[in-house]
């Protein structure tokens, strides 16, 4: 067994052991103290709830993930396009920044019911709410990124008569990517919040609705199951972003860890 392999095993094994230990303490405590299940179910009871109807959780996760990822992509694309305009012109930046900021500081829970009135109970309002909550961090990071061009590289391109278009694609866009990915890391958990909040308020299908129903039924094991599924979704999304980031930003110092 070589050292690198040992190192990898250790990296995976340590947190796994820590989690196992935590669950064991939890399980023991609930059993020994005979804690009521509706207050705090044992991990075994949560697992039983998950295994009892896995399809229900999977379907909820799929719908919520769809909304979160859809919203995140929509926001990222929209924010980047707007950022290009704002990075290009200070006047546009001054004009567009206040409404963008207003959108950010408005509590999402206050706006969500309106989206249900406008767009109904389907995927659309959920995607829009997830997009709304992730739009601002993506915008700010994209603007800063598009402006963070190495002036020396820019000078060089100008002396060889590169067009604005060439400078944009060859220099500006790649330079912005570390910032765009920083924005994505912030936005991934936000997008999940957006999706779940939308489901709370509109009652449309998804993990949020599952939580709402389980809460109403005092079905705490299912409630915990939904929370675990949600956490797993967050980890999955964050890890996916980190993976893509490491592939694309191999040249940048930030691309070392999650």
């Amino acid at each position: 067994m070589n050292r690198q392999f040992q190192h990898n095993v250790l990296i995976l094994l340590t947190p796994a052991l820590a989690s196992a230990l935590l669950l064991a303490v939890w399980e023991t405590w609930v059993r020994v103290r005979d804690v009521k299940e509706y207050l705090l179910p044992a991990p075994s009871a949560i697992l039983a709830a998950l295994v009892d109807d896995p399809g229900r959780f999977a379907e909820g996760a799929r719908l919520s993930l769809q909304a979160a990822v859809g919203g995140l992509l929509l926001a990222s694309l929209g924010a980047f396009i707007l950022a290009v305009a704002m990075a290009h012109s200070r006047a546009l930046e001054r004009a567009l920044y206040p409404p963008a900021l207003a959108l950010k500081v408005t509590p999402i829970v206050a706006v969500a019911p309106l989206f249900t009135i406008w767009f109904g109970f389907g995927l659309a309002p959920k995607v829009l709410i997830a997009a709304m909550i992730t739009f601002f961090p993506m915008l700010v990071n994209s603007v800063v990124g598009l402006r963070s061009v190495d002036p020396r590289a820019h000078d060089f391109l100008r002396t060889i008569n590169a067009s604005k278009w060439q400078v944009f694609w060859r220099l500006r866009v790649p330079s912005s990517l570390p910032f765009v990915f920083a924005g994505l890391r912030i936005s991934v958990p936000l997008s999940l919040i957006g999706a779940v909040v939308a489901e709370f308020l509109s009652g449309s299908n998804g993990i949020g609705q599952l939580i709402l129903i389980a809460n109403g039924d005092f079905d705490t094991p299912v409630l915990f199951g939904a929370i675990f599924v949600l956490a797993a979704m967050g980890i999955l999304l964050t890890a996916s972003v980190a993976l893509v980031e490491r592939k694309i930003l191999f040249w940048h110092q930030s691309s070392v860890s999650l």
Partner: protein
Amino acid sequence: MSPESAVEVRHLSHRYPVGNETVVALTGIDLTVNDGEFVAVIGPSGCGKTTLLSIIAGLLPPTDGQVLVFGSDTRAAKQSQSLGLVTQDPGLLPWLDVASNVLLTLDITGPHDDAEEHVSELLNRVGISRFARYYPGQLSGGMRQRVALARALIHHPRLLLMDEPFGALDEISREEMRFELLQVWEQEQMSVVFVTHSIREAVLLADRVVVMTGQPGRVKDVVEIDLERPRTAALEDSPRYQSLLADVRGLLVSGTDRSDFVHAIPRGRR
């Protein structure tokens, strides 16, 4: 204007506002660089030598006066791809490997049939062919500067503009790079404007050394360097070299008040 001059700077001034005040970076600059000539520009920190280079490169519009590059304004020189630029911090693109960084110029200036071949030939010439697939972040400062030189030479510019290109390098790399640059210059038959704060470097490399003084930046004097070519490291022992060195040093010391000079030279540009 004589047709053979590469750069013709006439009555050039440059001012810029800082807060409520106006800083005069350059005033009354007259300078001619002949075709094929190697001109070094030396002066204390803040004397405007980098500003002068930026104006010649067309990166900065002068406040007053005129700059002609090969007889027309710098825009035309850029359009005909006659300029090459190497700066102290070379500004390579970190997401491209060495070969792609060098190829970038050809990508931008238009299609070339034997571009790849040309790149590998040039990398070979500046001694980095082994590193063609490396990324800038994996290279030492000296290697990166060689990449910058290759990138600036790939389209055969007629005028190479260099702003303290070896300023951030260790002494051993600087020494190597100086003579490599001279070799390339002799092969390519181009003109060079070389901004430096090293007196030795200026005298060792150039045909003429333009000595500038600061606040406001102006040309103090121009020293003809009548040392034989090709220049070698052995030249540094010759009495003629030593006396030229003393001439340039003397101009720099008298060109500014002494305390400022002592302060300005070792600190470097930044």
